[in-house]
């Protein structure tokens, strides 16, 4: 086994242990757990039998399995970053909503006197 295989295997197994721990602590849902387990097992398999990736690479017209993994990683990482952007955007919007409610509460607290009675003309 080459050193890189050893590192990949250790990393995949460590990730698997973490995923199981998270699931036991109910920090992730069953579907997420299964998805991560599949990813970890896939990484373990590739670490032990790296040549199998050549088969899939050849199917897509890429010479080396390692290249296929690299391309696939880039696509997946880009997608994840996009998802994080969307989530962040939603969280930002939610923070704005909270801040807005707090600000509008100041009007309820009696600030309306400064610009006249509500719904009526100037005081």
């Amino acid at each position, binding site marked *: 086994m080459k050193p890189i295989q050893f590192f990949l295997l250790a990393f995949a197994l460590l990730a698997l242990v973490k995923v199981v721990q998270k699931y036991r602590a109910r920090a992730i849902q069953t579907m997420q757990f299964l998805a991560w387990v599949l990813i970890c097992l896939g990484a373990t398999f590739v670490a032990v039998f790296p040549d199998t990736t050549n088969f899939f690479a050849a199917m897509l017209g890429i010479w080396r399995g390692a290249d296929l993994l690299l391309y696939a990683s880039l696509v997946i990482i880009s997608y994840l970053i996009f998802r994080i*952007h*969307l989530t962040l*955007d*939603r969280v*930002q*919007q939610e*923070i*704005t909503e909270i*801040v*807005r409610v*707090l*600000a*509008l509460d*100041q*009007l309820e607290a009696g*600030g*309306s006197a*400064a*610009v*006249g009675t*509500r*719904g009526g*003309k*100037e005081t």
Partner: protein
Amino acid sequence: MSAQAERPGSHIAVVIPAYNEERTIAGVIRGLKAIGYSRILVVDDGSKDRTSELAREAGALVIRHVVNRGLGGALGTGLKAALLFTPEIILTFDADGQHDPDEIAHIIEPIEKGEADVVIGSRLSDPKGMPWSRRVANQVADLVTLLLFGLWVSDTQSGLRAFSRSAAARIRIMTSGMETSSEIIAEIGRNKLRLKEVPIKAIYTEYSLSKGQSFKLGLYTLTKLILAKIRRSKQ
């Protein structure tokens, strides 16, 4: 004589979003009050200076964001708060002193005559005094707005706007930053509101220029606009 005729500004609520504007805010409020606009609502967007205090002293109603949310956050809060006072017209006005209060009369006229639901004061009809870099940036913003939301407006980024009460109630602001200016245009299109542009002069000072968008912020705004477009199309 009606109360409205005695006090020309009493049926109008002026919303001023402000972030760290202690140098100009009091002067802007006094300028508005001097010509009869007394219903002034300042949304202090989490300023770290004396913006709130000075605005209150100058006679405005001030509500404050506990943390800074950006132009859109403050505008959204301002429109919502102003609607509580049921004014006929809600006007948005920049805090940096770049607008001439005397031009408000032209801005609100199409709404008062029932010819428009929303009026935007366009600085690009007569862009004298606007630095060329700013002019290009504004035109890029207009083009992006057209591509994303399908509506051509000559000055999408203008801070001087007027809304009829019903138009303000229908406009839904979901973004928080500078991209809100374009989102408002999208909302005008979505709600099929009648839009009119009225030429205004912008007073550019070193101070007001330092407050505008930089190129980097422009790119960030563009990203946020694309995300807003994606989110809107999902709904």
